[in-house]
């Protein structure tokens, strides 16, 4: 394996709340090599978005970050704001879920695209505008010159997300983080956007993290998958290996709960009973134990570490792996 472009080392994020400290991310380790794709999967509140904010150093002001986020040999958490600002764009870029809120509604598409390139690449306005039109064409937007003069509200959701991707790609980042990039979109447009991201990722040899709640999205489009539950990574393995042999009961339950196109209809879906634990009241044992059908006393009492005891290249945090 290549040397890591990104390595997240024992990162924890704690948010103060009126009910006490909330551990949104709990000692997560991840690494990603250049040109590789990592899927981070989990349900709402599992900490996947907070983890991506921690990597990007975009955490809420009051959040407390522990651990190191090493990117290209530098600890992002220790960088000054100005140094970070220079990194965002040419090194690190992000595509958010909702392109309506991530784009500025009072600036044209062209202004938003061009200002990034002028600031980071030192292009003059004519060159930046030309490059902007090229980028829009690359992300599949018809009539790019006209689109540059339009405002975000004049575009559909899918088109806005393409613009957001064009902006993210404009400075040729080494790492792109896509946080639920297709959740707000229709299934046909979702497929187009995911294909676009995959194509650009290969073409640019860019590393990418796709954050999603949909195991279907990561199955065909990632090299490695990390499953998160209650702030922790509970299983991490190369994608084919993960789907061939899930070790963590949560991952299996998550997959089983999706109605399959080839499963018998009208049957009871294997739902996961209950809901995730209150993040301000961490459990002493495995966080999934209250909902897990394999759980016993050991699971209630002691937290299983994320480990690879069989040295098979697949990590899981479970006392009773499948």
């Amino acid at each position, binding site marked *: 394996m290549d040397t890591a472009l990104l390595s997240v080392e024992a990162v924890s994020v704690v948010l103060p709340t009126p009910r006490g400290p909330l551990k949104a991310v709990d000692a997560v380790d991840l690494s990603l090599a250049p040109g590789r794709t990592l899927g981070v999967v989990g349900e709402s509140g599992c900490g996947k978005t907070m983890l991506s904010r921690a990597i990007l150093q975009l955490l809420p002001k009051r959040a407390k970050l522990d651990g190191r986020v090493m990117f290209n040999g530098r600890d992002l958490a220790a960088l000054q704001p100005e140094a970070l600002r220079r990194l965002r764009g040419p090194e690190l870029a992000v595509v958010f879920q909702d392109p309506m809120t991530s784009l500025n509604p009072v600036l044209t598409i062209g202004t938003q695209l061009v200002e990034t390139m002028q600031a980071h690449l030192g292009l003059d306005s004519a060159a930046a505008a030309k490059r902007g039109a090229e980028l829009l064409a690359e992300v599949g937007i018809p009539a790019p010159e006209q689109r540059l003069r339009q405002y975000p509200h004049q575009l559909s959701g899918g088109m806005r997300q393409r613009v957001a991707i064009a902006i993210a790609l404009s400075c040729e980042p080494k790492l792109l983080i896509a946080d639920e990039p297709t959740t707000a979109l229709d*299934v046909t447009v*979702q497929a187009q956007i995911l294909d676009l991201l995959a194509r650009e990722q290969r073409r640019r040899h860019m590393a990418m993290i796709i954050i999603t709640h949909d195991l*279907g999205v990561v199955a065909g489009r990632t090299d490695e998958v990390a499953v998160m539950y209650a702030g922790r990574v509970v299983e991490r393995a190369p994608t084919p290996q993960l789907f061939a042999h899930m070790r963590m009961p949560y991952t299996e339950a998550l997959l089983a*709960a999706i*109605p399959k196109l080839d499963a018998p*209809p*009208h049957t009871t*879906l294997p739902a996961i009973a209950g809901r995730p634990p209150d993040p301000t009241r961490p459990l002493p044992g495995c966080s999934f134990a209250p909902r897990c059908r394999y759980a016993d006393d050991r699971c209630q009492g002691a937290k299983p570490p994320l480990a690879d005891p069989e040295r098979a290249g697949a990590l899981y945090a479970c006392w009773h792996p499948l």
Partner: protein
Amino acid sequence: MNASPPETLLAVADLKVHFPITKGIVVKRQVGTVKAVDGISFSVGRGETLGLVGESGCGKSTTGLAILRMLDITSGKVEFEGEDISAYDRGRMRPIRARMQMVYQDPYGSLNPRMKVADIVGEPLVVHGLATDKDKYRARVAELLKMVGLLPDMAERYPHEFSGGQRQRIGIARALALEPTLLICDEPVSALDVSIQAQVVNLFMELQERLGLTYIFIAHDLSVVRHISDRIAVMYLGRIVEIATRDQLYKDPLHPYTQALLAAVPIADPEIEAGRTQQIITGEIPSALRPPPGCRFHTRCPKAMDVCKTVDPPMRERDDGRAVACHLHS
């Protein structure tokens, strides 16, 4: 379940819902028409689930609202339990509304945050004058909460104290308060997490079995729709382009749009994903203000022929009971 169920509960014939676009403040003049629903026909049998799928803007929610008469119908007929309700005013709709209810997508926006759960669930009883006896009313609310898997002592709490899945259960309990025969469910599980979504889908199926409910299940998630539906209608730009039983539709989709929708569903299996023949349509749904001439799908259709650009394909019923509007199958 076969394609023509024995007893028809709801029959929709050539339903159109058009919205005028006006300009000017004092003197309003019409400058265009959004044909949100433009001539659709289908029927739903008692105890059956009809899935209604399509991309955003295809008119599936408008169809649901028009059946409930929460929107004015431009033309066409809606027959519910043998009664033509398409011209009914508010007053005459009131007793009908008790028998057809809506479950909304957003469990956050559809519950009044200042009302207690008991009042939310019991409100339809009050509105319809069925809350005369206090004890009976309380007992009914408790029974409804139990029916959807909530604890009766949750009745005194407010919506913000509940998770998304629990809120959706509250919405379902409210819809069931008047013992309706038809539930129109508009994207009822789309806002929920996978593990919670499965719980709510299971609840819908249980309730149908127990209460003999009929569902119109509107959704964009084809795997959920397949799981719960007996028959499925696929909508595109205000029209139904294909209607078939679940097995027919998923095993052998006829309309290129149905094929494209199915091909776009991500499958949680890397081997299947790698081996799939991607037949993905490009572009997005055109504006309902200016639908393309001919077949409305021809601008995105990978199999479009010359005739598709000029001639609007009619809905043709086939020998196997399914119907499709496509020149390839006429």
